């Protein structure tokens, strides 16, 4: 509750002070989507103020779309914007986190070297036992996760792969400029899946919530699948726009 600041000595109404404190905490990222807010009673008791002031503050925040009440559960932060993206732009650029813009952050949460993964290895035409780098990143927009991405780069195509990748947050630039490959095309499949508990935890959604799942094969000019990307988007908060003309 440390984000609520009340000064009883100033003329600004207490309910407005509560509402703006909470708004500030949400905008700054201190409070995130689905975070639970204190009950009205807790705020009243902590600050020695009337129930009406807290009620009014919460009403304002509900009207502003910052918070929501769930009957029998409590009050939660709900300000999570829907991320709109053009499907084709996504499948090319955004796909590999190329167009990370203002307000977005991208963190590598795992660097690993794996030797097997049945489905992925089949799609990459790799044999079990062959080494492959795995980089998992999480993209957030104002603290809300918008994309969980797993990048697979086989050892045989990236033998000198090292920490250089860490410095490059653009995958295609890394593949083309640092590793000297020319990408011929990207082959993507798009489907809806239920979030596993791990995916849900990272994307701040509930287990089994729908996710948009895109798998992309990165193919070079020799027709080798030199890279593979799995992207997971929270379904409720991601919309893809498509304009399709009649053939």
């Amino acid at each position, binding site marked *: 509750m440390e984000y609520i600041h009340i000064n009883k000595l100033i003329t600004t109404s207490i309910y407005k002070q509560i509402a703006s404190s909470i708004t500030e905490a949400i905008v700054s990222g201190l409070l995130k989507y689905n975070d639970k807010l204190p009950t009205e009673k807790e705020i009243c008791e902590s600050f020695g103020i009337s129930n009406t002031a807290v009620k009014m503050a919460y009403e304002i925040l509900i009207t502003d779309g910052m918070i929501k009440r769930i009957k029998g559960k409590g009050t939660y932060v709900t300000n999570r914007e829907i991320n709109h993206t053009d*499907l*084709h*732009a996504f*499948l*090319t*650029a955004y796909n590999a986190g*190329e*167009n990370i813009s203002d307000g977005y952050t991208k963190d590598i949460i795992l660097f690993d070297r794996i030797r097997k993964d*049945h*489905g992925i290895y*089949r799609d990459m035409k790799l044999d079990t036992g062959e080494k492959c780098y795995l980089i998992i990143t999480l993209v957030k927009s104002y603290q809300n996760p918008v994309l969980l991405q797993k990048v697979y780069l086989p050892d045989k195509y990236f033998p000198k792969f090292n920490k250089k990748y860490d410095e490059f947050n653009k995958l*295609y630039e890394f593949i083309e400029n640092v590793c000297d490959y*020319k*990408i*011929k*095309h*990207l*082959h*993507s*499949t*798009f*489907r*809806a*899946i*239920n979030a596993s508990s791990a995916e849900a935890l990272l994307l701040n959604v509930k287990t*089994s*919530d*729908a*996710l*948009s*799942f895109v798998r992309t094969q990165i193919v070079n000019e020799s027709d080798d699948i030199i890279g593979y990307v799995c992207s997971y*988007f929270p*379904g*409720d908060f*991601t*919309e*893809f*726009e*498509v*304009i*399709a*003309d*009649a*053939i």
Partner: protein
Amino acid sequence: MQSNILDLITIDRRSALEYDTQLKKSIKSLILDKTLYYRTALPTPKDLAEFLIINEKLVKSAYNQLEKERYIHLSKDGQYSVSFFESSNHFFDRNTTIYEVIISLGLEPSIECIEKRIIFLNEETVKQMGFDSDKSNEYLYINRMYFGDNQPIMILENYLPLYIFPNIFEKFNGDDPLYQHLKEYYGVDNITSRRTIKSVNLNQRLADLLNEAKNAPSIQSTNHVYDRFNRLIDYSRSHTISSYYFQTLITREEMEKYLYTKN
């Protein structure tokens, strides 16, 4: 459909791997190499256990793991079938009809009209949909199921303005391809389709219609269709079965357009 799936599923009794793991691997590789196609019915755990002379619990364990990984699906009547869908289609990124997509999947298409009625939309809804709110607020609402080989693939709800399509309730029976009808009887072509695609959990009603479990993942597409005069002629929303997906190939040329001109 395979004539005898039982013969295809094998286990190696000398292997150190647990039987359920072996079974899972065996079935998964049959699905991935397309020996077992989408919707192929699998033997019941009891039948497979008896055939392989192993404990039924091990077959159930393998099936459960495959279901968790979304390779197979357990229907309400207890039948396991392949849910992995390995077919290319371009419904979402190209302006083809659902009918054509189903044919391109190698399936026999059919349409069933679940509901067809004239409705009156309020001004706010009309505006939200993007129709002309100055015109009549009468619309034809049709809710239809698309099947491939008699299995549900997609459910589609359309809203068609009567100010563009007068008497459509009487003229269109609901079981035929829609755009063909609009072209034939009204001379209206589907030129551009603007779609918003997202992944959603199916509610109970849609899940029942698509023969899926409640909360199964589904691709939802909200579509605005325009004619040659850039006039909105149809607003629709579709939901597909959970194993439905689409593929797309982005060439170097397209990549360069986005990657190197964006900055």
